[in-house]
């Protein structure tokens, strides 16, 4: 289809880009506004006097606008920094555990035939359909009794219930489409475990990297569990720190700046994901 780009195609792409970027732009703009501009009505379409003050404020620094005018550090800077650290710890630990667990599991489902496979596969797909709110009820009751509410450990365990089923499903589709290397590895004298570790995993590294990125994204973006389990405790994540801002409305530009910081890691991986995400076959395991 080596057709020239027509006017319509240009227009279509322009619409798609505007549709995608408008909500993000609106927020990016808000993080750069001065308090006066934010209070102004109607809201300005562009920041007339863009200032990065909010980004300093949320990390606890004052920002000197002019010699007389200083925009003070946010009172919630401590929560933001704490949330950022907790989010990083939880996301990294969840990603590591997820990958350790998911790679062998997906491999077994993708490449081997055994009894009960279909039933087990359906169980995994079903657990993707579990609403987080329902999973939370028993966990909450359990955690209250065990004293695990408000701990990073508790949050990590619950978050794994989201990442493991979904990432397994993705990887099954990916691993199925690898060339049939097992027989050759067998001839070369590898055991099954060695085949997995020395042949399949290196062969599948790009798919495994995508899976790891997605596990990280899911953990990083998780909000429901954090809201109930760690909100308002020292284990709060960036997500719950943000909602603290949102519901107290002290300074919209601080909220906007914190949100922009929270979507930075996702934005950084978007380029990587757009190239590789379609390799993860979500359709195959269902067929």
């Amino acid at each position: 289809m080596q057709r020239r780009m027509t006017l319509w195609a240009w227009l279509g792409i322009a619409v798609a880009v505007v549709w995608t970027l408008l909500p993000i732009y609106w927020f990016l703009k808000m993080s750069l506004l001065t308090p006066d501009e934010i209070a102004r009505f109607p809201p300005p379409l562009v920041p007339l006097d863009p200032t990065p003050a909010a980004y300093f404020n949320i990390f606890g620094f004052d920002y000197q606008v002019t010699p007389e005018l200083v925009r003070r550090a946010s009172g919630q800077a401590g929560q933001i920094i704490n949330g950022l650290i907790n989010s990083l710890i939880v996301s990294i630990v969840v990603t590591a555990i997820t990958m350790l667990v998911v790679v062998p599991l997906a491999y077994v489902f993708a490449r081997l035939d055994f009894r009960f496979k279909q039933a087990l596969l359906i169980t995994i797909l079903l657990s993707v359909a579990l609403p987080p709110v329902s999973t939370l009820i028993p966990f909450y009751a359990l955690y209250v009794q065990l004293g695990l509410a408000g701990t990073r450990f508790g949050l990590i365990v619950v978050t794994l219930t989201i990442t493991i089923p979904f990432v397994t499903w993705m990887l099954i589709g990916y691993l199925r489409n690898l060339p049939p290397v097992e027989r050759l590895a067998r001839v070369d004298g590898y055991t099954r475990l060695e085949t997995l570790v020395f042949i399949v995993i290196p062969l599948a590294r790009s798919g495994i990297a995508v899976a790891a990125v997605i596990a990280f994204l899911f953990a990083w973006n998780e909000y429901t569990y954090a809201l109930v389990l760690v909100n308002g405790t020292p284990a709060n994540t960036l997500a719950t720190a943000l909602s603290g801002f949102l519901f107290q409305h002290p300074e919209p530009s601080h909220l906007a700046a914190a949100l922009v910081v929270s979507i930075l890691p996702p934005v950084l991986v978007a380029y990587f994901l757009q190239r590789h995400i379609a390799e993860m076959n979500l359709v195959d395991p269902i067929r």
Partner: protein
Amino acid sequence: MAGQVTSTGRTSELSNLQFALLMALPVLLFLVLVVAYPLGYALWMSFQQIVFFGGYRTNFVGLANYATMLGDDKFWWSIWVTVRFTVESVLLAMAIGLALALLLNRPMRRPGLIRTIIMLPWCVSLYGTGIMFSYLATGQTGFATAIAFFFGADRPVSFVNRQWVIEVLAIGNAWNMAPLVAFFLLANLKTIPTRLYDLAAIDRMSPLETFWNVTLPPLRFTLFVFTCITTVLSMKLFDFIFVLSGGGPGTASAVMTYQIYKISFRDLNLGYGAAQSFVLLFLIVGSTMTLYALWGRREAAR
């Protein structure tokens, strides 16, 4: 190499099932612990009245929680809101996803950059999407207000009201989900041989006929799968709605997940919440089964 064959000969005689168990058993045990056990526990809880104040106690009440539901107007309202939100989200997400996929399939300059931009919404968290859309759609800070004033209006334009809040939610949700749909459809589109388009041109097919006869058929099973995925994601969605509208104004956007959250963690009526969460789970599984029976079975057999 020969040495390895003899030294490992014994273990390689494991049957597929044995190896699968060895690899998967620890993991499946963990899954049982973190998925099946809570589910069972929740089922048990749905038959209890749970009291937090004055020490954690449970009283067996049988099916009372389920019976309460039948006479609970808020419960029936939440089902209706969930259905409306889900249908709108899925239709929008699939339509936008398909449109984006067709667009991205054309040759263009800087494809990597454009595709990265299109991918962005899926990477943004749902609570982040909720915060963004709440500021975008409410009158005081909204984009529509800014545009309306630009053209001379004098009062704010808000969409977060009883009438439109569900549509705002559906649009935001579709904004977030469409890229996922688009990228998987795009992968399918790439497998269509160019030759087929040449043949369609020889047959003097109109663009619409070409789309219907050449482009669409290989996409159909993927479309089905993603209709299921977006349905499940929309029905179980909570954080986005909680952040954007908090179930409001009034109860205008009180979907089932929001009701369950409110009953369980605000009113601390965990038994009743658990009972409702089983209804939700039943609805989710039921709607995907229905989709499969009506549509998927036909496509899979194709």
